[in-house]
């Protein structure tokens, strides 16, 4: 067996390092998640929310950008509302890896002392936040959907609990910064303003490339992969579709509306469509502006994942299907007749608009 390189240095019970005069912690920091220099929408949404919190606290909005060739993102962070941007730009940070990224975050947090740190509740955001909060240590609220601050400058992070049946407000008095991950699609980003200016601070990487034991071999943008969490329109189908073929029809409607296809777990389990499309408790929690539930009965595990959509259209042949209870618009009937008619109606309307524009 190969010798293990690099001895582990377990640090089981971690203590705050350095300055623990918490009153010197000021500012609201947002981690800007990116891939290939493209920021995730949740990053701008959180900067938008951070400006609201920072105004109440009378402090600055700080953005933290980590990656390779990401200087443009520093500018973009300012256009989206940041006052100060900390940038760590280095080849070995091209792809996200927990250790080198968390070392940079820890360095920046300890040196520049934000009182609040926010990250997207994405897989990467949760991976990183979990590591950092343990290291600092500090309290970390998961998956927040409401954020606020009180007179004592405490962050009040509220999150759904028990399959979204309840909301819980969580705070952390003992340590700074106060940390939270927050869901995509909940908070509003500010309009991009290219006249805004701010300060960009360069930060050196905190790990030798040779020390990093994990290696990303490749990134596969899986064919047909869908980003449900960020979609504005979702056309979801369930067992009522009768087979995989009918998903073609849903795809057509989704394409017409600029949306993506979602699914219930039942059809994912049947293998009619990939797991990436599954909405619900063991799939993705979504908050699109418009959600179509087609041939989906409305089991609680499905409903918890989509009930916060702005508008829900349900189409089901069973007038008593529970999905109708949460739908804004209900059509009782056979989806095989209704969906083609809706696709046709959308196309007709688009044509009419085009003709109107011509005159």
């Amino acid at each position, binding site marked *: 067996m190969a010798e293990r390189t690099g001895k*582990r*240095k377990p640090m089981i*019970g971690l203590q705050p390092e350095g300055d623990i005069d918490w009153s010197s912690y000021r500012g609201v920091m947002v981690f800007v998640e990116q*891939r290939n220099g493209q920021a995730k929408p949740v990053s701008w949404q959180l900067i938008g929310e951070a400006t609201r919190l920072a105004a109440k606290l009378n402090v600055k909005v700080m953005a933290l950008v980590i990656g390779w060739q990401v200087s443009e993102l520093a500018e973009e962070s300012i256009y989206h509302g940041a006052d100060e941007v900390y940038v760590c730009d280095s080849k070995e940070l091209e792809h996200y890896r*927990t250790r080198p990224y968390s070392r940079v975050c820890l360095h920046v947090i300890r040196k520049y002392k934000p009182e609040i740190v926010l990250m997207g509740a994405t897989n990467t955001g949760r991976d990183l936040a979990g590591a950092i909060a343990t290291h600092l240590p500090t309290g970390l609220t998961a998956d927040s959907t409401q954020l606020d601050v009180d007179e004592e400058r405490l962050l009040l992070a509220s999150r759904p609990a028990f*399959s979204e049946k309840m909301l819980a407000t*969580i705070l*952390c008095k003992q*340590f700074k910064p106060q940390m939270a991950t927050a869901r995509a699609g909940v908070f509003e980003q500010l309009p991009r303003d290219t006249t805004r200016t701010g300060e960009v601070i360069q930060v050196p990487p905190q790990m030798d490339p040779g020390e990093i034991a994990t290696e990303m071999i490749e990134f596969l943008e899986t064919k047909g992969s869908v980003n449900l969490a960020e979609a504005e329109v979702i056309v979801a189908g369930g067992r009522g579709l009768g087979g995989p073929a009918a998903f073609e029809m849903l795809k057509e409607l989704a394409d017409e509306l600029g949306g993506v296809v979602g699914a219930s777990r039942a059809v994912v389990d049947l293998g009619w469509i990939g797991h990436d499309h599954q909405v619900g408790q063991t799939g993705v929690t979504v908050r699109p502006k418009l959600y179509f539930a087609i041939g989906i009965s409305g089991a609680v595990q499905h409903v918890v994942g989509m009930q916060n959509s702005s508008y829900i259209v349900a189409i089901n042949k069973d007038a008593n299907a529970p999905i109708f209870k949460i739908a804004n618009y209900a059509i009782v009937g056979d989806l095989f007749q209704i969906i083609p008619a809706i696709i046709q109606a959308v196309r007709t309307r688009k044509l009419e608009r085009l003709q109107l524009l011509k005159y």
Partner: protein
Amino acid sequence: MLHIVVCIKQVPDSREIRIDPKTNTLIRQGVPAIVNYYDLHGLEEALRIKDEFGARVTVITMGPPSAEKALCQCVSMGADEGVLVSDRAFAGADTLATSYVLALTIQKAEDTWGPVDMIFCGKQTLDGDTGQVGPGIACRLDMDQLTYVELFESLDIEKQEVVVRRHLEDGVERVRARLPVLITALDILNRPRRASLPGVLRAARYKPIVWTTNDFSNLDRSKIGLKGSPTIVSKTWVPEPKQVNTEYVDSANVVAAATDLLNRLYATELPQKLGWS
């Protein structure tokens, strides 16, 4: 021999949780406890490695005495040993205090049965639902973490390397890491096996090992339980059920119904928000 630790949590079956409409509190009574859904997928992967390479699989849980049952279920599936870390003083832990106790437990498991090569956790639990405990343990033990794993591609014992596929919102990442490593499992990773007959027989007689605060010589009492938990739940409430006035679209004539639906959608702020012309 490889030593694999699997972290499992006993959780209330969230499908059965109801809210008392009078008091707006959770009705926990009579809610069945189950092994957290994702943790069984972590266990299954550990058992597959055991089948292929030979390994000792130690399952650990921090929880009340009744969590013994969850450990027995894991033993019936093929785990070698189950450790229950249980003490009143551990109660009320948030993720920081939980990962502290679990990291100490794993360290003690290493002292007892040898160094750990891999740790499996679930992606998240069905109750706390944070996904923070796995990264917390990895950090405390100074291990690399591979979260949201959807495929365990390979293990090379000679090279002390694993290759896995991590599932991200926008795609899949193939990552190579060196042992020891902590992995958090998605449900698409595998299909958990049923208990075997010998497994069931062993589990019927099996008594999990129980460790309390007294069993840890290096335990810092200020870091456990409610006291060791920086997060405070300041209030819980039941959100106002979204008042939906369901509008029924007459479907006698599907073409008219489709037009009717579109007219209603166009009358909302959707066209403006979605940029429909």
